[in-house]
């Protein structure tokens, strides 16, 4: 173990994910936090520290969003910090919560993630236009989707991957989401539906993409001493990792997410994992676009480079397969309130390892799970490994 103390997750909560929720961002954060505390059997007074993960200020439209959301995250008169690494924020938030407790500074930490993208009207696509380099990229009118399209195309070209192989991810995740009570876009669709959906920026089509969403998620972390007093069923955080690649988008290996590999190696080393596909029982892999699930499986070394489409076609990544990927339904199915979507993945792994995932429960008795997110300007990897 790297840390001084072993850290457990003892409670999880999340709101519905929807395109437009009536609740304010604070109210969403409070719903998720209260649910996580209730599951842990704790009160806010029991929380010694709070970590809030939330992505660009421009979504909620409050230009100091960490402060604005603090009360909903239970931060009143507590050591509090906001963490923000773009789309990687949700999983980085649990990594940050882990070091709060592992360091020995706190026995408990409430980790909360929130996004209310609907405030950005008429569409949060406008907020995304200002995340890019102001000198080299923005004068060209860059949008988020065409940047992804460039990456997706390079990935397909490098390995000779077809659109229909990638579409299987969208089909799988939207179907998985039918069993998630909070899901926004659970559906039974076919590969043909994806291939016939509107072409946005070739090769990206409408059904290759996750939606924009409002939502929040939360976890309660505790030191080993505290966790063992409160539950017979703690889930341990055994690996954490995070890494950023060059800020120059144009200087990355677009076909392979090296930053995810670095983050995964850090987490695997800490958890003592030598053979990830054999040792990981269930994984929540960041899937804002269908190709990203495949891309990230390869970066996580759960599949060899260019081999993730084959595992998907063979059914290995289905909920009843040998390596279930995104049993929750992922961002494509459950929804994508950026930071909250990453923490939703951590909630899912927690529920899977406790055997509490209901209709989404993967087969066997999963003992080791992984959640991963990806963010900033498409170059940030964050990973957590949990064991029951």
């Amino acid at each position, binding site marked *: 173990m790297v840390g001084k103390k072993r850290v457990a997750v003892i409670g999880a909560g999340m709101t519905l994910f929807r395109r437009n929720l009536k609740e304010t961002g604070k109210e969403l954060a409070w719903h998720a936090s209260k649910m996580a505390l209730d599951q842990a059997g704790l009160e806010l007074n029991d929380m010694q520290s709070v970590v809030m993960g939330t992505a660009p200020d421009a979504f909620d439209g409050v230009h100091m969003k960490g402060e604005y959301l603090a009360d909903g995250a239970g931060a009143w008169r507590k050591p509090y910090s906001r963490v923000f690494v773009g789309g990687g924020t949700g999983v980085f938030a649990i990594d940050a919560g882990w070091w709060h407790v592992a360091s020995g500074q706190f026995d408990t930490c409430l980790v909360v993630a929130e996004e209310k993208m609907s405030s950005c*009207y008429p569409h949060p696509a406008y907020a995304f236009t200002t995340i890019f380099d102001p000198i*080299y990229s923005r004068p060209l009118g860059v949008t988020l989707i065409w940047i992804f399209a460039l990456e997706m195309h*390079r990935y397909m070209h490098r390995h000779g991957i077809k659109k229909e192989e990638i579409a299987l991810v969208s089909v799988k995740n939207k179907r998985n989401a039918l069993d998630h009570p909070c899901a926004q876009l659970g559906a039974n669709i076919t590969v043909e539906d994806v291939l016939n959906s509107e072409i946005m920026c070739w090769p990206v089509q409408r059904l290759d993409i996750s939606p924009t969403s409002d939502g929040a998620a939360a976890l309660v972390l505790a030191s080993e001493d505290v966790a063992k007093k409160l539950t017979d069923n703690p889930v341990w955080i055994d690996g954490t990792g995070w890494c950023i690649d060059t800020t120059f988008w*144009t200087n990355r290996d*677009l076909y392979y997410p090296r930053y995810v590999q670095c983050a995964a190696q850090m987490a695997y080393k800490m958890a003592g994992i030598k053979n990830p596909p054999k040792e990981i029982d269930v994984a929540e892999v960041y899937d804002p676009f269908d190709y990203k699930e495949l891309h990230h499986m390869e970066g996580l070394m759960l599949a060899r480079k260019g081999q993730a489409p084959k595992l998907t076609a063979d059914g290995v990544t289905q909920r009843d397969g040998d390596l279930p990927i995104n049993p929750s339904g992922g961002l494509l199915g459950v929804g994508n309130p950026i930071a909250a979507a990453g923490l939703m993945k951590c909630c899912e792994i927690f529920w899977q390892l406790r055997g509490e995932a209901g209709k989404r429960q993967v087969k066997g008795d999963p003992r080791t799970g992984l959640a991963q997110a990806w963010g900033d300007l498409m170059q940030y990897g964050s990973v957590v490994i949990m064991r029951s």
Partner: protein
Amino acid sequence: MATEKITDIRHMLHWPGHMETDYIYTQGIAGEKFFSEIKENEKIYGGRCNHCGQVFVPPRLYCERCFRKIAEWRNLGSKGVVYTFTVVYIDIDGAKLDEPIMYALITFDGAEGGLIHRLGEIKPHEVQIGMPVEAVFRPQAERTGSINDIRYFKPQS
């Protein structure tokens, strides 16, 4: 909590807000070199780190790996290769464009990285990854020292 499927948030009680801020971004030390060479000489420059030997385009003031100052500029000409591309069919509001726009990442021989830019004088179905292209510059009088001083990249003649 609210579970109804609301399609327009304006149907809830709300306050319509606005975050208005304008900015002026300086191009920096390396940026001024890069854009001056485009504006004056129709040349794309990279910067070479004398410690690791890597040539970066766009150029930088410092090597992010060695963390040393980059003082050597490299003329990369105006010709490159399509590393990847997309064909954009919709605008930011999701409305269909009259004509699709092609964007590519262009890489340059002997340098790491590249430029994102438009492609022109070619149809979407004709573009291929690996295709040699060259920059088409605006007339000198119209250049302002920005990335748009390059109108687009076209197939090499």
